[in-house]
Structure formats: structure tokens, C-alpha cells
């Protein structure tokens, strides 16, 4: 069954998939209202989309991503994942472990564990046995081109390689969604390109919904949809011009 079709004009259109994220009037304040990060944001993200969220520093895009990942709670408004309220999830740890994978700008790898061990971290508490965890981690690392770096420590890797480890780790439990926060922000342009290619490739092959925060227009241009934010609100939401 085709999941995408082209119009006579050649534009890519996706069939309306299942609603993954829905935000209505989402607000977030810090320091008792002194800092307002989100001021009533409305948003819908559907299954299989590759959405880029762009905007200036401080526009609230990273805050939004943290809300989507249940790393922080909204001050007001509704935020649902597949129809269930994220702030009210009975088991947010299970949501983070099984439904989503995070990729961060600063990689956030654990420095005292090897690459292979880092990738296994999200698998604790799951059903896999010790050897299955290891086999799965090896498989993931090979798929991001790091099969030769298994027993290296993060400090021994380049930035691009570290981000590949983080991506492999984000995919550990076969999540439905990958949330990437400026994944190329700490990389040189060549590594950045490779990471975006890798993410796009995984998005296509694994059909994961990819939500990517960036302020780099060339990165955003690779997405199927670009949401622009300013001052805690969405100011535009449109398919990417070129794909």
C-alpha cells in the first residue's frame, strides 16, 4: 500500500496518518511567570511526518520538544500523544523508554561507558536478555556505520560519530517517534550533512515520525514540513518548498 503519492505537479503529499501529537493552547512559564516560553501554542503532528521546527533562539522550540518528550510539564493547555494527555501519563518513564527516542545537540552520552554500553542504556527494564541487548546494540551501531567503534569511549570519538551513537541509542527500543533537538548544532557542516542524511534515511526506512528542532535553514529544508515559531507561538506551518 503506497504511503505517499505525487500530485500532477510533482509535490509530495502524505495521506492523513494517525494523529501522534496534538497541542491546544499550550503554555509554559518559568520562574513564576517571569519567563514565558510558550504562549498558547497549537500544533498537530501525524504519524510518519518529518517536521522541522525552526525559529530564533529563545522562541520556545526546545521547550516544546521537552514537553513532547515529557521531560517537563506544561503550565497550561492540552498536550496529547495518540489521544492521551502527556502530563498525565501514568508511566512517563515507559513513554520515554518505549515510544520516543531522543537525540540532543550535546549528544548526552555517558562518558564512563563504551559506545556499546551507551546504546544498551534504554533497554534496561525491557524484556531483552543480556545477550539480546548486546546483539541489538551491535546491530544498531552497525546500521549507523559505527560497527568498528563498539568498545570506544565517547571521548575517543568525533562529534559526528558521537551523534551517530546517540541516534543508535535513540532507536534502541524501536520508538514510534524520534525527537531531535538541534542534532547538528555542535557539528561541522560535513558531519551535519551526514547526520541529517542518516536521520532522513532512518525516517524513511523505519517509518518513524521525526520531529527536529533546528535554526539551520538548510537542515529544515530537508523536512517534509516546516513549523516556524516566534515568541512562543507558531507563526507559519507549511510543507517544505523543495524535497
Amino acid at each position, binding site marked *: 500500500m503506497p504511503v505517499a503519492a505525487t500530485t500532477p505537479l510533482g509535490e509530495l503529499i502524505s495521506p492523513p496518518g494517525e494523529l501522534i501529537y496534538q497541542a491546544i493552547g499550550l503554555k509554559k512559564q518559568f520562574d513564576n511567570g517571569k519567563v514565558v516560553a510558550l504562549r498558547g501554542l497549537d500544533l498537530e503532528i501525524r504519524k510518519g511526518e518529518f517536521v522541522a521546527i525552526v525559529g530564533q533562539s529563545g522562541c520556545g522550540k526546545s521547550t516544546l520538544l*521537552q514537553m513532547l*518528550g515529557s*521531560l*517537563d510539564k506544561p503550565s497550561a493547555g492540552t498536550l496529547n500523544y495518540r489521544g492521551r494527555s502527556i502530563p498525565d501519563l501514568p508511566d512517563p*518513564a*515507559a*513513554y*520515554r*523508554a*518505549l515510544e520516543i527516542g*531522543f537525540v*540532543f545537540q550535546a549528544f*548526552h*552520552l*555517558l562518558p*564512563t*561507558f563504551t559506545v*556499546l*554500553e551507551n546504546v*544498551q*542504556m*534504554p533497554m*534496561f*527494564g525491557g524484556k531483552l536478555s*543480556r545477550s539480546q*541487548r*548486546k546483539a541489538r546494540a551491535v546491530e544498531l551501531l552497525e546500521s549507523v556505520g559505527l560497527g568498528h567503534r563498539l568498545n570506544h569511549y565517547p571521548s575517543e570519538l568525533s562529534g559526528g560519530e558521537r551523534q551517530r551513537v546517540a541516534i543508535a*541509542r535513540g532507536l534502541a*527500543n524501536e520508538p514510534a517517534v524520534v525527537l531531535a533537538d538541534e542534532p547538528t548544532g555542535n557539528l561541522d557542516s560535513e558531519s551535519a550533512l551526514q547526520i541529517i542524511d542518516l536521520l532522513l534515511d532512518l525516517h524513511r526506512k523505519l517509518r518513524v515520525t521525526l520531529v527536529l528542532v533546528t535554526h539551520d535553514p538548510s537542515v529544515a529544508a530537508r523536512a517534509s514540513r516546516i513549523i516556524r515559531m516566534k515568541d512562543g507561538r507558531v507563526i507559519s506551518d507549511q510543507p517544505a518548498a523543495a524535497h
Partner: protein
Amino acid sequence: MTFFTIVLRSLTRRPVRTCLTLVGISIGIAAVVTLVGLASGYEKGIGKQLDAVGIDVVVSNMSGGLMPKSFNESLEQKVAALPRVAETTSVLMRMMSVEEAPIMMISGREWGGFAWSGMKILNGRMPKDGSEKAVVLGTLAAEALKKKVGDTVQIEVEELTVVGIADGRSMVENGTIFLSLGVMQEVTGDIGKINFVDIRVPPNTSKEEIDLLCRDIKGIFPEGRAMVASEVVGSSQGFRVVRAMSWSTSLLAIIVGVLGVMNTMLMTVFERTHEIGILLALGWRRRRIVSMVLCESALLGMLGGLVGVGLGVLGLISLGSSPGIRGFIEPDLNPRLLLISIAIAVVVGVISGLYPAWRSSRLTPSLALQS
């Protein structure tokens, strides 16, 4: 990789700090093993001595310190006249510093009494009579004082000749200086005084009959007590003080250990705030974070306990062979005490980890990630 790998990794990442913390706990545990081991070794040693001499019941006034108070020697005749008494002998015993030895047991035994009969002379001879100014040394006492037959030993202001060296068949006996009661009373200025009447009962006397005898003795000697030999040390007030002191000193050392582990665990939790944030973002449950911290501190406690028991055993062995204690206290390497010590260390570890674990579980993932 298992959960245990993760726990272990956080202890090995800062080896110096981990080692210092281990030393902190192990000192407390070593104190338990050494002090409590010495105290119970003392108890055991006295028990063995009474056994070697063949004493069934001891009459003394234990209300004082480690050595009972003295009383009039006429008590012996009164006790000897009681039913169920086969044999009695009077003893005046003192612990004092003798020449180079810091502390030594000196036992003045009634000449001709059964207390002399258990000794086996290895060298020299017994005193000729009850008034010869002579001593017999236990083998360990001879070693500690570096004396041989023919030398003299100064007790208080008297010079006494070593006429024999004897095997007393128990460590405490071997660490003792023996002389006749009369000479002892003269040397220490306790004329007419003794502080023990040792009793043998006829063979096959039942426990109930011995209890009856003890009650009779209480009747003629209200300020003192008659005790079955096996209960002597445990009921001594002095010994109770020693036992309480060794536990309370150990407790103090353990508290210092607890603070050390708590400090280390708090530091690791603080410096790993960021990493705990990462684990939370990866979907680790707070419960798992808490058990990670608690397992780390329990492991730290257990390792500290093992090191501490090792140090304690070494301490006990070296103290046991040091000149001041050898022949006086037989160190007690009781496996139960060693297991209890390790259990204490693990509990110490867990208790020290509670607060840091609670702290770590209260972190907000987004804030922890930013730190």
C-alpha cells in the same frame, strides 16, 4: 552489560575517592572486630583458665573493677564447712605492671591448695614451701619478662627469685606469675586478705545442687557472690564496662564511616546530576535510579566491611602477640562476629545511601539535563 556493571562502574570511575571511603568504613568495622574480639577473648581466656585449674565455683566480690575486691581470708573455712563442697583454696590475684610488662596477672595461691596441682613444671621446680620468696612463671609470662630460672623478678618493692617455669594449660595461666598466698600478701601489703575462694564440688554434683551451694554462700558472704565458673566473667561488672566500651567506641567509628559514605554518595549524586537526567530522558524509572544509588552505597559498605574485617583480624592477631596482651587475652576470631561486622557495614552503606538516593530521584529531567 548488566545493572551490576553500571553500579560497579560508578565506583571505579573515581578510584581514589572510593578507596578513601572504603578506608573510612573499614576503620569502623576494624574497630568492631578488634575491640569486641579482644573483649570476648578476655572472657573466653578467663573461662579456659578456670577450666584448666579445675574450678567449679568461684566466690568473690565482683562489684569493683576488673579484679574483685579483697575480703578476709577466714571466709575460706566457713565455705569449706558447707555441704556439697569437696575442696577449697584461697587466691589473692592482682593485675599490675611488672618490670617491662605493662600489665600482668599475679596470682598468690594458698600453698598446698589444688590451684597449684594443674601446673606442669617445665624448668626448675616449685617453691620449697609457702614462705619461700620465689615465683613460678607461666611460659608466656617468662617470655614477656625475658626471665629464666635463677633470675629475679621485682614485684612492688620485693625482688623474688624465679624458681620454675610452668605450663599452666591455658593461655591466661601461662601469662601469669604464681607465688604462694603468704608471700603475695606480704609483697602487696594485703595481710590476711584474699579476693577469691575457689571451690571444687564432688563429682556428679547436679546444677541444682550447685545453685543451692551458691545460695548458702550468699548467706555467709552477703557482699559477695558465688558463681559457677562458666558465668564468672559475663557477670563481672568490670567486664560489662569493657564490653560496653568496646561497642561504643566501635559505634563512634562506625558513625564516622556512615558520614564518610554519605558524603561520597552525595557527591557522586551531585556530580552525576546531568547523567541521571540522561538516564531519566532515556526512560529509566526513578525507582531504578534509587536502587542504583542504594546498590552503589551498599556495595561500598560491603567492600569496606571486608577490608575492615581483614584489618580487624590483622589487628587482633598482632595485638594478641604483642607483649602487653600476650598471655593475658586470647584474641577471639569468632566467625559470627566477623559476619555481624560485614552485615553492619552493608547496613551502614544502605543507610548512608538513603538521602542521596532520595535526592537523585527528585530531579526534574529537563533541569538535570541542563546542569
